[in-house]
């Protein structure tokens, strides 16, 4: 059933040809989803550039692979061509020590700002015991441009009461207008993808489930799909329907909370309480299927682990029926509030052209009028067998993104009902797991559409019981740089609204680092940097 592997293609590219090749691809409508780097030991560093083509009906998947030498790890930067490469290249700089030439903004994003670069001091790589964090007083102020500008600075996080996630948003403010904004991540290092390389595939399923609390079904689903693509096995049709049902229940759960949170961020707390009340119906359904409310442990290689009987299907059907009536009333009342609409309308405007240029995914790009949805373009599970439509809105502002979520909720509800009807008629003896064969060497990619956008897994197998490497890109990764662009130039009171309308999940994004435990102070105080009187220009901007 899974046809994703047919659309996948790997192409080697040399260091010199990278820029012309990528320029051609970008001109032909490609989107750079992710750039990942893998340390291949004596062979050097393997850099993978993941492209997809949104304009094509069935989106192709192209992987450009460049190998750089270990003693001379340099690669030209793609950020001058497309800003979509910005964060991915900063990740490569930080974690692999590859010198990305001409990157306009090579500051640390995950590592502490005064973390010594590997390629600046090559002996650091040889000596793992060496101190990586420079605790001496800085000769020049760390390249943290926000705190040293002669403007008011509003810090937002790392653990801000309004956004209980580990990001650090800094805004320089003039009167009520946000002049500049910057995001610092890395407060929640979990090194999950490194841990996955040490554990076998069955354990990795449970590890991937714990990357995100909201999208755990999609994380496990994408991981097992990537491994199934290496194996090239067929999944039983019933398992595909169960996967679709679980994924859509999760989407409803997440969208409902995102809608409620947007109400809370605009001072409309009643709506959060109502959304939580309605969300219970979905959580009950999931609990009846799997016995758990959040982590279900439902996916396994080659199928699913929990069966959905006709009794379960009937129960979910009845819950969805009551949900359908109450949710449409909830949405109606939500949108009947004039104050809320005024707070959302024309706030965080992302024009359709910008959404393409910056590589937005999920409700963010669909709110700007592009019908991009992995479920249609790169079909997986049983999405080809149920009838549904991609939701788009043309408003391109926070209100449009809210409406996209609301309408997608109703579409998900419809898909769930169709899945329940089919699962009720399927004989209970039909298999839900296909038999596994030995895992060959090879690599597989898988894409799914979690509630927040496009999720990408890239798994390589070397024939042993542990993966060679796992790389993943969560939907917040491309959306968070856009969040900064939307904040800039706006009113400071609109910042929570914009954040809420994008619905970021920074804990997912923070998954990838390996950091030695070090409790020293990592961020220099702003007062120190002001004393030196220097102003650091933000590189290239």
């Amino acid at each position, binding site marked *: 059933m899974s046809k994703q592997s047919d659309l996948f293609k790997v192409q080697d590219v040399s260091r010199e040809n990278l820029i012309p090749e990528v320029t051609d691809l970008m001109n032909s409508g490609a989107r750079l989803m992710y750039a990942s780097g893998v340390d291949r030991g004596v062979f050097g560093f393997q850099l993978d550039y993941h492209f997809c083509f949104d304009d094509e009906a069935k989106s192709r998947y192209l992987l450009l692979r460049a190998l750089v030498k270990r003693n001379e790890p340099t690669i030209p930067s793609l950020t001058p061509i497309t800003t979509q490469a910005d964060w991915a290249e900063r990740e490569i700089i930080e974690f692999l020590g590859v010198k990305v030439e001409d990157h306009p903004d090579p500051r640390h994003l995950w590592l502490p700002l005064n973390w010594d670069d590997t390629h600046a001091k090559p002996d650091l790589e040889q000596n793992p015991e060496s101190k990586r964090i420079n605790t001496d007083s800085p000769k020049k102020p760390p390249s943290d441009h926000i705190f040293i500008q002669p403007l008011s600075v509003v810090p937002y996080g790392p653990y801000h009461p309004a956004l209980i996630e580990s990001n650090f948003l800094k805004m320089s403010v003039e009167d009520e207008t946000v002049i500049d904004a910057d995001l610092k991540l890395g407060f929640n290092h979990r090194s999950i993808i490194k841990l996955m390389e040490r554990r076998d595939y069955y354990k990795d399923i449970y590890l991937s489930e714990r990357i995100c609390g909201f999208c755990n079904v999609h994380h496990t689903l994408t991981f097992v799909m990537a491994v199934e693509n290496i194996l090239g096995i067929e999944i039983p049709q019933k398992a595909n329907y169960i996967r679709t049902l679980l994924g859509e229940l999760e989407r409803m759960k997440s969208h409902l909370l995102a809608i409620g949170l947007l109400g809370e961020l605009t001072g409309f707390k009643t709506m959060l309480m109502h959304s939580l009340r309605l969300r219970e119906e979905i959580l009950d359904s999931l609990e009846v299927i799997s016995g*758990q409310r959040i982590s279900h442990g439902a996916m396994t290689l080659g199928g699913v682990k929990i069966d959905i009987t006709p009794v379960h299907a009937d129960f979910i059907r009845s819950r969805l029926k009551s949900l359908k009536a109450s949710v449409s009333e909830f949405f109606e009342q939500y949108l009947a509030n004039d104050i809320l609409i005024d707070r959302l309308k024309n706030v965080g405007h992302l024009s359709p052209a910008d959404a393409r240029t910056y590589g937005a995914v999920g409700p963010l790009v669909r709110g700007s009028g592009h019908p991009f949805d992995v479920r249609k373009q790169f079909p997986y599970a049983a999405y080809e067998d149920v009838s549904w439509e991609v939701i788009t809105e043309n408003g391109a502002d926070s209100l449009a993104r809210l409406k996209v979520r609301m309408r997608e909720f109703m579409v998900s509800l419809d898909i769930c009902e169709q899945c329940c009807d089919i699962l009720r008629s399927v004989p209970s003896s039909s298999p839900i797991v296909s038999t596994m064969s030995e895992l060959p060497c090879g690599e597989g990619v898988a894409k799914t559409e979690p509630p927040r956008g496009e999720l990408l897994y890239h798994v390589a197998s070397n024939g042993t019981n542990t993966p060679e490497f796992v790389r993943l890109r969560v939907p917040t990764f491309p959306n968070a740089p856009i969040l900064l662009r939307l904040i800039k130039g706006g009113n400071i009171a609109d910042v929570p609204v914009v954040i809420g309308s994008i619905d970021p999940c920074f804990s997912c994004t923070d998954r990838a680092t390996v950091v030695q435990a070090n409790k020293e102070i990592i961020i220099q105080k702003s007062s120190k940097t002001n004393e030196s009187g220097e102003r650091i220009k933000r590189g290239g901007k």
Partner: protein
Amino acid sequence: MKKVSQMRAFGSLLSWLYKKPATVDGLFGFIAPASRGFPKRNSDLCTGCGACNERCSSGATSIADKDAIRTMSIDTLRCIFCARCADICPEGALDFTFKSEIPDNVPDNMYFFGITDSKEIPEISKGIVRHICLSHTIDEQSQSIETTLPLQKCPVCGEILPVSEKFLEVVSQRTLEHLQPDAAEIVREDMKKYLRTCISCRREMSKEWNTYPRKFI
């Protein structure tokens, strides 16, 4: 249209004044019927092979060898109830169930894992049955499911082998079942001698016992 929904919102607001709170009492400790339940090991079947320890993704299982005794245990507070150990167990010794025996001397205020009988599930809401709690504080003893098995001693030199007696028994039985009767007879005689000895003794004595594997070729 907007006026209508605003009126409706006002109406529902009034109706909420006369309704009870949406929160439900006594749900603490409720466990869904579809939940896999808690791990339970049949000590008669367990051979201490360690397959469950290999497959456990949360690190709840552990094997400890001490004083010629192997202790297989599952920390139920670390267990995520994925039931992979039950899938992989070659003896079918592990099971996930709600039923477990609660010793009589457990105090009532102690949070306990598992309930005595499935009939008692409705009584949870009345607060009669002890709470089932998935979280715990530091002072609380974690509930573990333990099986102890004696380890094999080498009959020649007395060294303790890293396998249990029962495991060797089961393995030899299973091997002999799959052999032709005449070959099985020879292998059975050989196994009596070499199976329970340590590797170094096995190498030294193989000529004397005539158990070296090349004789079959």
